[in-house]
C-alpha cells in the first residue's frame, strides 16, 4: 500500500530531527543511516550482532555479521510501536549482508606457465592475424555437445554470442553446468573465432549420441565434441554404430565435425574417418613446440589407414595438463577438483569456487580446431568438411619435438609430418585462412565471376 505523500514527508523530517541521515525517499520506504545507539534511542529497542553461516563469493563455508533486534520475532525488524514514530512508520527493516555470487570476468593470476583465453590461445594458434584481417567467424554457427553452459560473466563481458542452451535427450537444468567442462571448453571456441554464433547442446552422459543428433538437428556449420570412449579394437557396439552413422550423415550434409582424439585413449569417435581428429601440442614459454604427452596418437585398427590425430590444438603436459585458464561455474566439479589447494602441476592454484580452472587435454584442442574450421568456412563457404580438414592440415605448423601419450600402441615421437604424434602439426589459423582464400579465389575463377 502506498503511503500518503505528506506522511512520507513528515516521517523523513522527523527522522532527520532525530539525527538520522536520510539517504533516499520513495513512495513506500525511507532509506536511513545512523549509529546503532541512535536506533536504540529513537525506536526504544535493543540491537545485537549475530554471526550466521553465509555463502560469499569465493568461499562456500563462511559466516557474516547480521544486526538483529531481539524485541521482535521477525528477523531484521525493529518495531516502532509505542514510539514517537508509531503513526509514521510501519517498522524499520535492517539491511542484511549481501555478496556478489558471480565469478570475476578476469582470470586469477598465478606463478606457472599457462595460457589465458582469449589472448594466449588466440596468439599460440596464430589466430590474431586472421582476426586483424576481419575473419572472426561472423555468420558461422558452431554447436558444442557437452556438459552444459553456465552464464559466466566472462562471456557477457566480451560480448560473445551464446545462444540458449539446448537440452539433449535426458538432460535437465539448462542454466547449470554441474561439471564445468562445457563452459570451460567453449571459451576455446571464442578465443579463436570470437564472432561465431554458439550454441551448447547439454547432454545426458548416458545418451551422448542423442545429444550429437540434436546438434545435427540445429543444422550448424560446425559441431565440436570434446569427449569419446576408448576403443582400440572392433567390432563397434550398437551405440558406436549409431554414432558412426550419425557422423556420416552430418558430414554428408556438409556439417564439419570435430572430435577430440583422446587423452591417452584410442578415442572413438575421434578416429572416425569423417571427423577432424584433434590432438595436442604444447607451446612453451619460449614459443617452442612439442607434442603433448597428454594427448593420443595412434593408427586406427577399426578404420584401417586412418591415423589419429589429423592435427593438433593447444594441450598441456602430464600429469594434469593444467595449461589454459578457463571460466567454469563457481564451485562446480572442475573448479573444486583443480582448485584443490595443491601447487601446480597437481592443482591449478585457483580457488575451489572462484569460477576459474586451468585445464586442457584434447577437450581443449577440439573446440580450437572447430573454431579454426569456422574461420576457414567463413572465408571459403563452398569447402566441404573434407576440404576444410585438408586446408587446416596443409597450413599446420610442423612439430618435431616430444612424443604423444605413452602406452602400448602410442608413444610416437614427433618427427617429419605427418606423423602419429601430432598429425600435420599445430593449427595455424592465419595460414589456414590464407589457404582458404586462395581456394575460394580459385573456385570463383573456375566458376566465373561472382555477380552481386
Amino acid at each position, binding site marked *: 500500500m502506498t503511503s500518503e505523500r505528506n506522511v512520507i514527508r513528515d516521517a523523513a523530517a522527523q527522522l532527520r530531527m532525530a539525527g538520522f541521515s536520510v539517504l533516499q525517499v520513495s513512495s513506500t520506504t525511507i532509506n536511513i543511516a545512523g549509529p546503532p545507539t541512535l536506533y536504540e534511542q529513537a525506536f526504544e529497542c535493543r540491537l545485537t550482532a549475530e554471526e550466521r553461516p553465509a555463502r560469499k563469493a569465493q568461499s562456500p563455508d563462511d559466516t557474516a555479521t547480521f544486526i538483529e533486534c531481539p524485541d521482535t520475532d521477525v528477523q531484521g525488524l525493529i518495531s516502532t510501536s509505542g514510539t514517537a514514530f508509531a503513526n509514521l512508520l510501519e517498522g524499520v527493516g535492517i539491511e542484511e549482508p549481501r555478496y556478489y555470487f558471480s565469478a570475476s570476468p578476469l582470470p586469477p593470476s598465478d606463478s606457472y606457465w599457462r595460457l589465458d583465453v582469449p589472448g594466449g590461445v588466440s596468439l599460440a594458434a596464430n589466430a590474431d592475424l586472421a582476426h586483424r584481417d576481419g575473419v572472426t567467424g561472423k555468420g558461422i554457427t558452431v554447436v558444442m555437445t*557437452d*556438459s552444459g553452459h553456465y552464464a559466466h560473466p566472462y562471456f557477457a563481458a566480451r560480448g560473445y554470442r551464446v545462444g540458449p542452451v539446448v537440452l*539433449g*535427450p*535426458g*538432460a*535437465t537444468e539448462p542454466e547449470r553446468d554441474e*561439471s564445468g*567442462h562445457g563452459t*570451460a571448453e567453449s571459451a576455446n571456441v571464442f578465443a579463436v573465432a570470437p564472432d561465431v554464433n554458439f550454441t551448447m547442446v*547439454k*547432454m*545426458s*552422459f*548416458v*545418451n*551422448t*549420441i*542423442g545429444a550429437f*543428433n*540434436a546438434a*545435427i*538437428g540445429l543444422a550448424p556449420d560446425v559441431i565440436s*565434441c*570434446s*569427449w*569419446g*570412449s*576408448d576403443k582400440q579394437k572392433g567390432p*563397434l*557396439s*550398437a*551405440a558406436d*554404430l*549409431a554414432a*558412426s*552413422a*550419425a557422423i*556420416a*550423415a*552430418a*558430414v554428408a550434409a556438409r556439417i564439419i565435425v570435430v572430435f*577430440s582424439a*583422446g*587423452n591417452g*585413449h584410442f*578415442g572413438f569417435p575421434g578416429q*572416425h*574417418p*569423417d571427423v577432424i581428429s584433434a590432438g595436442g601440442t604444447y607451446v612453451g614459454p619460449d614459443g617452442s613446440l612439442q607434442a603433448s604427452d597428454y594427448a593420443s596418437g595412434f593408427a*586406427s585398427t*577399426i*578404420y*584401417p589407414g586412418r591415423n589419429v590425430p589429423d592435427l593438433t590444438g593447444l594441450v598441456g603436459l602430464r600429469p594434469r*595438463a593444467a595449461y589454459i585458464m578457463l571460466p567454469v561455474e563457481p564451485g562446480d566439479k572442475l573448479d573444486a577438483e583443480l582448485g584443490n589447494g595443491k601447487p601446480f602441476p597437481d592443482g591449478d592454484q585457483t580457488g575451489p569456487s572462484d569460477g576459474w580452472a586451468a585445464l*586442457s*587435454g*584434447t*577437450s581443449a584442442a577440439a573446440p580450437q580446431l572447430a573454431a579454426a574450421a569456422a574461420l576457414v568456412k567463413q572465408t571459403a563457404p563452398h569447402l566441404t568438411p*573434407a576440404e576444410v580438414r585438408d586446408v587446416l592440415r596443409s597450413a599446420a605448423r610442423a612439430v618435431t619435438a616430444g612424443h604423444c601419450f605413452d602406452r602400448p600402441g602410442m608413444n610416437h615421437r614427433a618427427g617429419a609430418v605427418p606423423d602419429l604424434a601430432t598429425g600435420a602439426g599445430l593449427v595455424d589459423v592465419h595460414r589456414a585462412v590464407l589457404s582458404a582464400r586462395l581456394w575460394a579465389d580459385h573456385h570463383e575463377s573456375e566458376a566465373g565471376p561472382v555477380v552481386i
Partner: protein
Amino acid sequence: MAGETGKDQLRTALVVLATPANPAAGPGGYTVANGPPTVTADSEAVRKWFSSKGFDVDPVVGIAFSISGPGSLFNRTFGRVDPESTVEYDQAALAGRLDKDLLRYVAAVVIGPPPDFGPGNP
C-alpha cells in the same frame, strides 16, 4: 546427467535400427559420409510405437533415434534397471517387450556408458 520429474527420474535411451549390409561402406566396413547410412526399418512405425507408449521420441539421425521419459515408463517397458547402469538390449532381449511386428526393425536399445574422456574426465 539425468534429471528429476517429481520423484520419477528422467531417463533416456538410444534406439538403434536394423541396417542392411552397406556396399558403400568405408574402411573396416563401417559407415562413412561417402556411403550414407540406410535402414531397412519402417522407422516411423517404430517411432510411433514408442510414442504410443508415452516416450518422447526424437527424429531419426543416421540409424538411430532417442527416446526419453520417466524412469517408471522405462521400467514398465524394459523391466527394472538401475538408473546408473549401462544396458544394451539386443533383439533377443527385446523379444516380448517390443511389438513383435517391429522387432526385426530394431537392432538394439542402448542406455550407454558415460564417455571415457571429456566431461568428468578432462
